[in-house]
Structure formats: structure tokens, C-alpha cells
């Protein structure tokens, strides 16, 4: 009998959370996993010299995520979610702007 399960939103949180909220938590989880992977790739780069020159491994190892604590991960997750939302919004607006206007609009300029 958890308190949070006494609400409709709490009982079905996986469906009731807004898309923005899910994006935020997904970003935090991705960064948590990246911090673990970053540590491993750094070690792998040290152990296997010829892999150390691989650009991908160097980039992932240099992300420097391995020592991030929870507050940093949550803030970075929020920043990542905001950036992705802004990117998607601006992309949608740009695509709308590039599309032709409806023929029936009164201010449609006939070309």
C-alpha cells in the first residue's frame, strides 16, 4: 500500500506521465547508461592500444561522464530533453514554413 498508488496517476504512471516528462526521464536513464559505458570504453582504450586511436572510443571515453553524480545526471537529462524538444519544435515549424499554404486560404498568393 504505497501512498503514490492511491491516485489514478500513481497507479498508472507509465501511461499518465506527459510526453515531456517521459522524455526527461528517458534522457536521465540514457545518460546514466552512457556514464557506465564511458567508464568501460576508457578502460578498454587503455588496455588495447590499437583501439585507443579509434575516434569513436576516444570521443566516448572523453565524455567524462564516469564520475557524474545523480544531481548532474538529472540536470544534464533535463538539458538534453529541453534541447531535443526545442530541436523537434523548430524542425516542425521549419517544415511547416517550407510547405505550401492551403489553396483556400484568403491570403494565399496564386503562383
Amino acid at each position: 500500500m504505497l501512498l503514490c498508488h492511491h491516485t489514478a496517476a500513481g497507479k498508472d504512471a507509465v501511461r499518465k506521465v506527459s510526453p515531456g516528462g517521459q522524455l526527461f526521464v528517458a534522457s536521465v536513464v540514457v545518460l546514466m547508461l552512457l556514464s557506465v559505458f564511458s567508464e568501460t570504453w576508457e578502460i578498454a582504450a587503455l588496455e588495447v592500444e590499437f583501439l585507443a586511436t579509434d575516434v569513436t572510443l576516444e570521443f566516448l571515453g572523453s565524455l567524462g561522464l564516469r564520475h557524474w553524480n545523480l544531481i548532474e545526471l538529472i540536470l544534464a537529462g533535463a538539458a538534453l530533453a529541453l534541447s531535443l524538444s526545442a530541436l523537434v519544435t523548430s524542425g516542425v515549424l521549419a517544415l511547416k514554413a517550407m510547405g505550401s499554404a492551403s489553396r483556400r486560404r484568403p491570403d494565399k498568393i496564386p503562383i
Partner: protein
Amino acid sequence: MEFLSGGFLSALLAIILIDLVLAGDNALVIGLVARHLPKDTQRKVIFWGSFAAVAVRAVMAIGVVWLLKIPGFLVVGGLALVWIARKLLDPEEAGAGAHQLAPAQSVAGAIRTVIIADAVMGVDNVLAIGGAAQGSILLIVLGLLISVPIIVWGSQLVIRLVERWPVVILLGGAVLAWTAYSMIVQEPLLQSWITSHPTAKPIMATAVFAIALAPWYGANLRPRYRSLTVLLPGLLLWLLAFEVAEDVWHLEVDYLEARGLSDYAIQAIRWLGWLPLALAYLAWRNRTGVDSAATQRR
């Protein structure tokens, strides 16, 4: 852990979040147990029941600190936290329905029932706080102090918070999964093995998150892809098993070190051997889906 350092504040934030999402409904328990008692007796049960909830939490916190120092218990605690995270995200799947509490006939019986119910409800919370505190007694005491007002006065606050921001539950689930992974990799019995198998850590982390957060991402998948909630953790555990097999049966599982035919055969089994198992699972799932649909039609 230095006081007010980044690590300390992060652990404190994790503990606050855990206290919020894993807060048990003490008021409901007392109400159910004392519903048939006279009004003046109910007030005694409310007072002593709340006092008992706090005392039980304190005793369990001391017990958890002691238990987690025993080798092996960090892994057990971490695995328990994975299950707790799943239960938090999908209460129906874990069978966390309404608990039947028989009304008590006396004050002593009511208080005894409340203590037992509090102990059962509080185990998740205390275990998660013990894991998030990483051995710091100060953080465990702070976690206890934060949970006390929630137990005694703050139930409506928590309910309103969750109603307004259900994302707190998802974030709580992610933090529980992160705490579970941290507990497992900090286990002293596994330290030397993890150091010699650095690739085991990302596999374990992904498996922990894949299992703990399955109710969340499974709900967002189309029904035909929901088997991924089983296949993904299964694949990760398959890969982890080969890391373990490297030491147990002296196999060569690093593809860079593979030399002979047997090494390449092991590589083939490692990377492709899970496919027949996955196909068998999908076939079984389709069959049970067809069988249950046929049963419903009849």
C-alpha cells in the same frame, strides 16, 4: 563522503525521492485496523501506531546497515531493489492489490497488527535508503528523519504531489534502478571479478535498467513488440553468462584474443546462440496468445 559535497547532496536527493515514492500508507493501515474500536481507543491506536511506525523504521534502518556489510547482501539488496522498482511502476503486475487487514478487537491487537504491517511496508523504503546512503550513517539518519513527517502528517502532500507530477514515480523508478546497479557493483565479493571483466559493468547496468523499467517502456511499445521486455534482458543475461563462463570453464570470450576453431565456435555461440531461444520464446508466446484467443471464442 564529504558533508555537502556533490556526492552527498546527490545521495540526499535520491533518498528524498525514495522516501516520497516508497512512502507507505500508514494512516490507511491504522484506519483499517482500528475501524471497529471505540473513538477514544482509536486515538490511542493512532498515536501508538505512528510511534511504532517510526520505531520500526529506526530498528530496520540499523538492521539494514548491519546486513549490507555482510558479503553478498549488497547483491541481494540490489536485486530486491530491481523488483521494488518494477512494483513501483506497475503495481498490478506485482500483485500489489488491496491488502486485507482484519479489524482489531483490542488496543494491543491493533498496535501489534500496525507494527507488523508497518514493518512489511517499510522494508522496501529502508532497503532503498540503505542502498542510496552508501554506508553513510548521517544519510540514513536524514532519510529516516525525512520519512517520519511523511508517515505521520504528509500522506495528503505525497498524494497531491504524485497527482500533479506523476513523473516523480518514473524518476523514482530510474533512481531505484541506478541505486540497485550501484549496490551490485559495490559488492566486495564481485570487485576482483568486475575489475578483470570491465565489459560486465555496462551489460549489468543495461540489464538492471531493462528489467526494472520494463513496465514503462513495455507500455509504450506496440503489443506485437512487447516481447522485447523479455528478450532484451534475456539477451543481456546471456552475454553476462559468457563473462562468468570465462572464469568458470576457462573459455576465451574476447573476440580479439580468439585463435583456434574452438574459440571462434564459442564466439559464434555467444553472439548467435541466443537466437533459437528467442525464436522459441516468440513461438511459445504466439501459441499461448492463439490458445487464449481460441478459449475466449468458445
